[in-house]
Structures are given as C-alpha cells and as structure tokens.
C-alpha cells in the first residue's frame, strides 16, 4: 500500500475543514450574508435559482450515496477513513444546498416535489450509472466515477457558478468556495488512490472507461438541457440579474465573459473545460478518455 494513504486522517480533516475554512460559517457562509432581495423577489430569477440549486442537491445526494457506499468496498482502512470524511463533506453539501432552496422560499414540505419538478432527467441517469457500480461493490469503478468524473464535473461547475456569483451574490459564492475546497481533497484522493490501484489491476481499464463514457454522455446532455434547452430563461434571468446587480456585468472564466456569452458559448466553455480536465486526469492515472456519442 502506498504510504501516502497514511495522511488520510480524521485529525487532518478536522484541522483543514471545521477548524479551517468552515470556522465561523453558518451553512457554509458568513452568518450575516443572505440571498439578494432581487433573487428572492423576482419570480423568474427565483425559479431559475431553484432550478440550478436542485441540480446541485441531486448531484450531492448522489455523491453522498456513492461515498458512503464506497466505505464498505474500500480495500484498506486509510481509504475507508478518507471516504468517511468525504461522506460527511457530501452530507454537508446536501444540507447547504437544501438550505439554499429554503432560503429561496421552498417550503420544507414541498422539498421533494420541488426536486422532482426541477431535476434534469439526464442528471438522474448520470447518477444511476455511478450508483450501480457502487452497489456492486466495485471500488475502482466507483472511485473513478465518483472522485474523478462526478467531482471533476462538480469542480468546474462550482467554479463557473462562483465566478458568476462573486460580485452579486456573495452568500452563494462563499457557499461554493467552501465546497470547492472540499472537492480539492476528493479529486486528490481519486487520482492518488486509483493512480496506484489501476497499475495493479490493468484488466479493469476497459470496464471503467466504458462507465466514464456513459457518465460523460449524460453529463453533456444535462449541460445541453441547462443552456441551449433553457435559452430564453438563461438570457432573461441574466439580463435581470446584471441590471439589478445580482450578477457581475463581467465575469471572466476560462477566457469567456460569462456575463455576455450566449447560452451556446456558456455550454461550450463548461463542456470544454470539464472534458479537458477528464482527459488530463484520466491520462495521468493510466486510463484513456472515451468520447461518448454526442447528445441530440
């Protein structure tokens, strides 16, 4: 077993998270911050904020189910220990994203029906591919699906949302910032643990790469629905948000000004960034990125 596993301690996690960047926060943000009035009062902005946050809740629920399921599948105790800390990270993400739904006016008794109404079905399929591997007890596929594919996607999506929110919605931006800090450890674990395991089990490569292609297909379909398939709402909400100061009038991210880019350009820069990261990360650990069929 690689000795790097010894660093995965609960003590280190305590020092970095609860006693570090989460110190003095409430649900992931400074206690005095709240959603901007325009986001809560404008029905279109509110609905689109709920739509976005529902996808985050569903993604984080999947991550919670996967990381907790992988604890029992892990072949060594340091990995179990790390995944236990990741389980708590993911549970926190579910909680803070759910709390945002309440802050946006969703009633507690309407939570599940709101999620059902707004969730993107392609995101559900994405989660199902991963959770099938986890329920089979497949540690290698599960960690690649969870800590490289899902977390790699989340890393870029959160960064993009943070860039858009930084100026106009510091509460949401702070919540995302703490989540991104958690994701750094999760992708680090994915690469480091699987980087060594895949060398010991090269026979697993084909199956894992097939899962990656399936997950990537559903991810791209989710992006397509969220931008091109939701064009009018994307453009209208952005115009209102920029005019009312709830979004920056410029928000540069990977060379694209998100405040003025078309929905197609926003989808393209997000997909390009995520896929670029997938290729680089998979290549580093000895896997070859598999292109999925392009969603219709």
């Amino acid at each position: 077993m690689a000795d790097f596993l010894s660093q995965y301690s609960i003590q280190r996690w305590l020092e970095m998270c609860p006693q570090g960047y989460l110190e003095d926060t409430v649900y992931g943000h400074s206690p005095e911050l709240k959603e901007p009035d325009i986001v809560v009062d404008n029905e279109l902005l509110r609905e689109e904020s709920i739509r976005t946050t529902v996808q985050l809740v569903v993604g984080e629920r999947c991550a919670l189910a996967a990381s907790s399921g992988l604890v029992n599948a892990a072949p060594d105790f340091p990995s179990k220990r790390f995944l236990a800390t990741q389980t708590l990270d993911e549970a926190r993400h579910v909680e803070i994203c759910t709390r945002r739904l309440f802050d946006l006016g969703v009633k507690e008794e309407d939570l599940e029906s709101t999620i059902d109404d707004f969730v993107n079905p392609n995101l559900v399929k994405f989660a199902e591919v991963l959770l099938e591997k986890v329920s089979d007890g497949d540690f290698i596929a599960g960690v690649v699906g969870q800590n490289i594919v899902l977390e790699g996607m989340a890393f870029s999506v959160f960064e993009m949302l943070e860039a858009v929110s930084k100026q106009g919605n510091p509460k949401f931006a702070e919540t995302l910032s703490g989540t991104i800090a958690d994701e750094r450890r999760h992708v680090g674990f994915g690469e480091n643990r699987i980087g060594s395991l895949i060398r010991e089990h090269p026979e697993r490569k084909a199956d894992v790469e097939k899962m990656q292609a399936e997950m990537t297909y559903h991810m791209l379909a989710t992006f397509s629905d969220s931008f091109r398939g939701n064009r009018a709402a994307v453009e209208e909400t952005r115009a209102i948000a920029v005019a009312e100061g709830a979004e920056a009038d410029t928000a540069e991210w990977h060379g694209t000004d998100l405040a003025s880019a078309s929905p197609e350009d926003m989808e393209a820069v997000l997909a390009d960034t995520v896929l670029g990261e997938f290729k680089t990360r998979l290549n580093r650990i000895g896997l070859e990125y598999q292109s999925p069929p392009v969603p219709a």
Partner: protein
Amino acid sequence: MPDSDEPGMIANRIEKVRAKREAGSERRHFELDDRGFNEVPKKWRKFYRHWEGDGDTLGPNEIICPVCKVVIRSVKELRPGDRLYCMPCMSRLLVVEADDGTLTTEVVY
C-alpha cells in the same frame, strides 16, 4: 612552461569552475507571507495561494498543482527534481522541465 597535459588540464579546470559556479549559483530564497489561503492548517497557509486567473503570474518559487489548481509556494527557487507536497489535495509532486523550458509538475502515485 606548460606541460603536455595542459589542454586536458584546462578543460578539466573549466569544467570544475563551471560546476562550482552552477553549484554556487545559490537558489534565491523567498520570504513567504500569508495570502489568505485558509484551506490548510494555519502553520502551512503561507505555502499556498489561490490562482487569480488571467493576469496572475507565477514567481520562480511557485508552481500550480495539476490536481487541484492551487499555487504551491516554496521558500526557495524551484528547480527540476524538487519534490513538493500539495496539502489541499494531498498529492505528491515532482518538478520537471517541460519541452518549452518552463517548469511543471508530475504527480507521484
């Protein structure tokens, strides 16, 4: 009068001087300040900072972690062969020279 070994001796001396100069070209040292990176325990925070995006530049003692994208900062100028640890993502890295002569890192698994 120089003896017959002179050319070889000079070449040898030049090599020694060159090696000495290279060995003597001490790495620059840097005083690190806390840049507000709060994702690691306090005593290690000065060794990291966030990448600020377009317009940001790396110092000779800095390099980006390829796994988690934070900037790792060293108290001395970085050179190929240096080993680094990225605490935010817990990755071990080796500094290498890229084809274009810039420094980059490889993840050690």
